[in-house]
């Protein structure tokens, strides 16, 4: 008997939902101001995007997030329309979701390992995170976490970047008394002086930081530890039981080529500090910022993109801004999205080009950058093909403003005044990755001061790990 060949009913093929794009303001409009470029999801877009999550039992996305946010958990709440519940879920492990949702390199972290990415574009985890955090804040529904009874212990947190803020948040929850020491006049570290307003509005950073103030953190601004007070004084004279150091990597690197001290040549830190921290783009603020007609930005990381796009906004439409980078396009370290936005805004890319000297006029103002063409040779230690100068290819690029964005290193105030804190030859603190323990008892460190320039969320991850270790240390002391 021949098996009856039954035709199977056609499988109900679920329409696959495409990844929802986040609305973005058109380039010609956004280069006229410093308002945010990306507008965020609407409720509808968020609901649709959330449906793309498969709620997989193995949820690899969680492992891809340095602070292990319960991603399927919060996305599930979004599908139910409980946006505030979703925000609270995220805040169990991440104090700054509105920040991370905006600046995290999601494509290399949570979204890279998302199961959906195997067949389609990954779930827009970052966009959803941003949406629920914004929703919570706009609804005024920000809740303070529960705080344990006072432990009687005092902890000093040095530096108020993402790592320091995270440590403070966790330790306050555990009932410890926390004092934050910050050298600048505003809390937030790179989030306030580096990353520009159009990518991360400062009011959002302030709102997220407000939580730790409400939780009772004592804030001491204008305190440069290593100068105003030393680590030893904090521990021996001021009665702190433990110290966390999250002072970042704030020292700008230069090319060290002739003419680099001419007027009009600044580090990206200087340029961005003038614009962001000192709000030079706003009429009522007096700090000057100057952008000529031709701007050259040296480097191609996130910082270079931020500097280039800020320069375009300060200089105006007829200001020509170019990136000068010694390697090739696919070696640029900036996030793809940032490069894309920069291109849309008319930033020019001079790739495989390396500056050799700067040339000024009789007033010592920079006028030209002499560059040399590069070609790619064998791969170097970083695995990238090494750029080699092409002999005789020197040429001139006119520039009346130059911004050098070559990366940063830690400053040495603390290392110099705390001899038992050991550092590497680059000035980063030697600290245990899992616990943030340094070579000095009771002193922990994390973020860029340990890793060198990295990311916001890695700094926060390090902060969480250190807070856990500090809690254990304090329990045992």
């Amino acid at each position: 008997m021949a098996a009856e060949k039954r035709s199977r009913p056609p499988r109900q093929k679920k329409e696959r939902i495409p990844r929802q794009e986040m609305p973005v303001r058109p380039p010609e409009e956004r280069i006229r101001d410093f308002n945010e470029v990306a507008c965020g999801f609407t409720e509808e877009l968020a609901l649709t995007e959330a449906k793309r999550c498969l709620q997989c039992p193995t949820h690899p996305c969680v492992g891809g997030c340095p602070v292990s946010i319960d991603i399927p958990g919060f996305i599930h709440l979004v599908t139910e329309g409980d946006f505030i519940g979703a925000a609270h879920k995220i805040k169990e492990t991440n104090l700054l979701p509105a920040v991370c949702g905006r600046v995290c390199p999601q494509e290399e972290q949570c979204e890279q390992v998302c199961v959906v990415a195997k067949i389609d574009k990954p779930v827009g985890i970052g966009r959803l995170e941003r949406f629920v955090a914004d929703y919570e804040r706009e609804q005024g529904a920000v809740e303070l976490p529960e705080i344990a009874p006072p432990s009687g212990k005092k902890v000093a947190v040095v530096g108020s970047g993402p790592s320091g803020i995270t440590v403070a948040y966790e330790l306050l929850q555990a009932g410890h008394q926390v004092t934050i020491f910050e050298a600048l006049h505003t809390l937030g570290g790179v989030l306030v002086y580096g990353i520009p307003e159009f990518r991360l509005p400062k009011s959002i950073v302030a709102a997220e930081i407000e939580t730790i103030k409400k939780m009772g953190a004592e804030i001491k601004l204008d305190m440069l530890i290593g100068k105003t007070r030393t680590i030893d004084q904090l521990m021996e004279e001021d009665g702190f039981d433990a110290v966390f150091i999250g002072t970042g990597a704030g020292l700008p690197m230069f090319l060290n080529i002739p003419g680099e001290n001419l007027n009009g040549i600044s580090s990206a830190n200087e340029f961005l500090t003038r614009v962001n921290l000192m709000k030079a783009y706003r009429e009522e603020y007096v700090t000057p910022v100057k952008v000529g007609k031709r701007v050259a930005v040296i480097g191609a990381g996130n910082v270079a993109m931020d500097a280039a796009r800020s320069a375009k906004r300060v200089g105006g439409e007829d200001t020509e801004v170019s990136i000068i980078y010694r390697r090739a396009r696919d070696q640029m370290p900036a996030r793809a999205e940032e490069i894309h936005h920069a291109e849309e805004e008319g930033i020019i890319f001079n790739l495989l080009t390396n500056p050799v000297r700067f040339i000024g006029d009789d007033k010592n103002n920079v006028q030209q950058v002499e560059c040399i063409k590069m070609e790619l040779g064998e791969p170097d230690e970083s695995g990238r093909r090494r750029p080699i100068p092409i002999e005789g290819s020197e040429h001139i690029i006119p520039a009346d403003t130059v911004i050098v964005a070559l990366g940063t290193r830690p400053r040495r105030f603390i290392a110099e005044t705390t001899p038992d804190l050991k550092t590497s030859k680059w000035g980063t603190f030697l600290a245990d990755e899992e616990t943030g323990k340094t070579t000095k008892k009771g002193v922990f460190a994390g973020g860029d001061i340990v890793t060198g320039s990295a990311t916001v969320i890695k700094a926060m991850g390090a902060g969480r790990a250190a807070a856990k270790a500090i809690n254990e240390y304090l329990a045992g002391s």
Partner: protein
Amino acid sequence: MYKIVKKKVLAPKITRFTVEAPEVARARKPGQFVVIRAEETGERVPLTIVDSDSEKGTIDVIVQEAGFSTHDICCFQEGDAFLDVLGPLGKPTHIENFGTVVCIGGGVGIAVLYPIAKGLKEAGNTVITINGARNKELVILEEELEKVSDELIITTDDGSYGIKGFGSTVLQGLIDEGRKIDFVVAIGPTIMMKVVAEVTRPYKIPTIASLNAIMIDGTGMCGVCRVTVGDEVKFACVDGPEFDAHLVNFDEQIAKHHYYDHEQACQMEKIIAAAEQERS
């Protein structure tokens, strides 16, 4: 907030403030400075700590109105408060017993010079101070300097007080007289420090200058205060403000001071316009 407990106008456009800043007062050493941000919209302005009282928790600064921000600071009154005072910044002056030292200051540089002269005197040096000003009205800290100097010479550009002429000429005179000078500290307008460096160079008299580089943060983060010293680039706020005057590229510093002239002039125009409006 950092309360102003005392304000005193020393000379036209030169004002002394005593400000509550206990942490700074406790930590500061001669030669160090603070960065003051007077109000939310203000610039961060570097100013030398002239004196301090760690018991009262106060520091003194002397401000000369050079442009918009220093003018703004000088408008603050006793009882008001500055929004931010950060410090002490920079390396303290290296003080030891050199023997005979000449402290030569010009203009408001005298304010910066005073704590250093005091420190040098306390360390046992014979201190000759040359206090230069444009005219009699602008001579400041005469009494204080008198106390810490073995010899105080005052010069004015117009001869209205003391010796007529520049301090650097007096210094040259001392050298020509064959006075033994072991160390020179020069603080004042960049051009004056440059001239002093040229005076002492042929005699190889160790000379330091305190640079008034343009600064923003004052903590080594922005690099605007870069200065070429010999064949090295240093940050004045971290590695200075004092450097070997024979190695500093003063011309580069002078050029830097003119870079924002236009923007500063625009700010000043605003003040003048506001003042005129008030008058009418």
